[in-house]
């Protein structure tokens, strides 16, 4: 086992940044954000996770798909150059690491591969950071996630008092550590603090089966009453993957792009001609919770929630998925 001293971590990031874009949580405007490392930022690898999940590094908020040129009846399209940059994500928590696996299920399986996502994902290495303290809104363990050891990552970091333990999980991870050279030292008997244990305990056992019988239940009217339909939950959710496709015209040229969309918005399902299968917030909120807890498990065999707690932390009216899970299990059919 090797470790790196706290003051040497920026040097390591700098070394990695020579061959890739390194994204690491940094302080900006009083919050923590995954930003490219330029050697000067203030690292934010403390107890709290980033305000926004790192999903936009694989699935940007807006992404150009192709360009077009229109001349009378004629038109021509040009594909955009494929994304070739290498990325290294440093400081990814176990919950967000799980979300990458869920996004992979959506974008890389079931018959079609999303090329935009694949290019970014395949060129990325992930260095995870173990959590030593849980926020009041954390509940990752409900989904079998270990806050001390992330799944599907290349390197696992664990904080020590004066540095970080580094463990290569994959060959690519070992290569990253090899680049560190003399920055690393033998960890000896250094033992990291234990992993955080969330205080928010949620039992998701049986919730899918219960929800399968609850589509018409009056509970959805009740729970959606206070929802403002603002979409903050979907924006902050590391597993929400819905997108819209739009075009931007600039004279006789233009480009087609995709951008994040939200199932909380009425336009989302409204068809030309006006028919909307999910006309009110009751249907929309129901769809969001059923997608996380019933539809995704039915389709991919996993919950589409990682217990990061961002939605319940930031919802302006305290719609709380952990409470929904508890209440769903209690309501009478």
């Amino acid at each position, binding site marked *: 086992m090797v470790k790196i001293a706290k003051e040497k971590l920026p040097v390591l990031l700098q070394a990695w940044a020579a061959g890739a874009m390194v994204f690491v949580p940094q302080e900006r405007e009083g919050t923590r954000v995954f930003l490219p490392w330029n050697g000067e930022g203030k690292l934010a690898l403390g107890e709290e996770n980033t305000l926004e999940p790192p999903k936009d590094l694989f699935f940007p908020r807006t992404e150009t*798909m*192709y360009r*077009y040129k*229109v001349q009378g*009846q*004629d*038109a*021509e*399209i*040009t*594909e*955009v*150059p*494929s994304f070739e940059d290498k990325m290294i994500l440093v400081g990814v928590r176990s919950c967000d690491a799980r979300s990458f696996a869920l996004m992979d299920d*959506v*974008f890389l399986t*079931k*018959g*079609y*591969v*999303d*090329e*935009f996502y694949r290019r970014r994902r395949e060129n990325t290495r992930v260095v995870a950071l173990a959590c030593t303290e849980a926020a009041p809104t954390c509940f990752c363990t409900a989904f079998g996630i270990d806050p001390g050891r992330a799944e599907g990552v290349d390197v696992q970091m664990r904080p020590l008092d004066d540095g970080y333990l580094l463990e290569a999980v994959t060959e690519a991870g070992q290569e990253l550590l090899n680049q560190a050279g003399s920055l690393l030292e033998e960890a000896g008997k250094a033992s990291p603090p234990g992993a955080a244990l969330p205080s928010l305990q949620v039992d998701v056992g049986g919730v899918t089966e219960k929800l399968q019988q609850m*589509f018409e239940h009056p509970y959805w009217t009740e729970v959606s009453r206070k929802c403002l339909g603002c979409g903050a939950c979907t924006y902050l959710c590391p597993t929400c*993957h*819905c*997108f*819209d*496709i*739009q*075009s931007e*015209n600039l004279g006789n040229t*233009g480009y*087609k792009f*995709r951008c994040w*969309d939200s*199932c909380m918005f009425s336009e*989302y*399902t*409204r*068809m*030309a*001609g006006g*028919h909307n*299968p*999910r006309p009110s917030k009751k*249907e929309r909120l129901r*769809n969001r919770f*059923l*997608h996380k807890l*019933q*539809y*995704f498990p*039915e*389709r991919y065999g996993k919950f589409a929630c990682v217990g990061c707690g961002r939605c319940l932390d930031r919802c302006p009216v305290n719609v709380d998925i952990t409470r929904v899970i508890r209440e769903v299990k209690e309501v009478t059919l």
Partner: protein
Amino acid sequence: MAVEARVNPLVPMEGRIVKIIEETPDVKTFHVTTEKGKPFTPMPGQLAMLSLFEVGEAMFSITSQGPEHLEIAIKRVGMLTEALHEAEPGQTVGIRGPYGNGFPLDMFYGKDILFIAGGIGLAPVRSLINYCIEHREKFGHLWIIYGARSPADLCFKQDLFENWPRVENCRVDVTVDKGDEGWKGHEGFVPAFVEKLNPSPEGKVAVTCGPPIMIKFVLQSLEKLGFRDDQIVTTLEMRMKCGIGKCGRCNLGSRYVCLDGPVFTLAQLKEMPNEY
């Protein structure tokens, strides 16, 4: 253009509208081809994403095909369809597909088929009717029951009144909600017309498509006539953006209409949330 080792399913081919047929005051059929010929070869019931680059992109059912082109019948209902209706032959379009499952042909081989459609709902059903006619020996009796609001709103009139009635062992019955001076045919709504014609469920499979309200009542009529849930097939529509099960919006429960549909049996539909 970047050299692509893989095909990006979200980037369309450049296609061209080569022919436009005015079916009704608000429905036109567009024949679309590409420089390399037919964009792709869909199975009956499959879908295509059609776009005018500077306006938008939407999913349409493919109503028929020739050796060199696809036929897409489009009703004028929104921004993109309005722009398409203003287009002239020669217009460049984006096209990608084919998408969706199409009709489960195995279910139809050797059976008598009852087609029930209303308005533009005949478009997807027509792809199957034409397939059955092309492979006539594989299917039993074909019975087409079709209705529209008025005689002027009947789509595919040449098929309805000339081509299909001439097909061997094929029957066509047409109704309109309300006739005009020249109309000598049946007047009334499709579901009541179906009940009046009283087709026997024996050895049959029923295929229905039309406005949601028509589908709802046709399903009731078919059940009344003794059709079982696994003898009835319908095709759904939802708002779609990607067409490949990623963008999220066309889900019915855990299924995506673009990928797992648009064709479902009534038995499947009854297991899914009633949210379409």
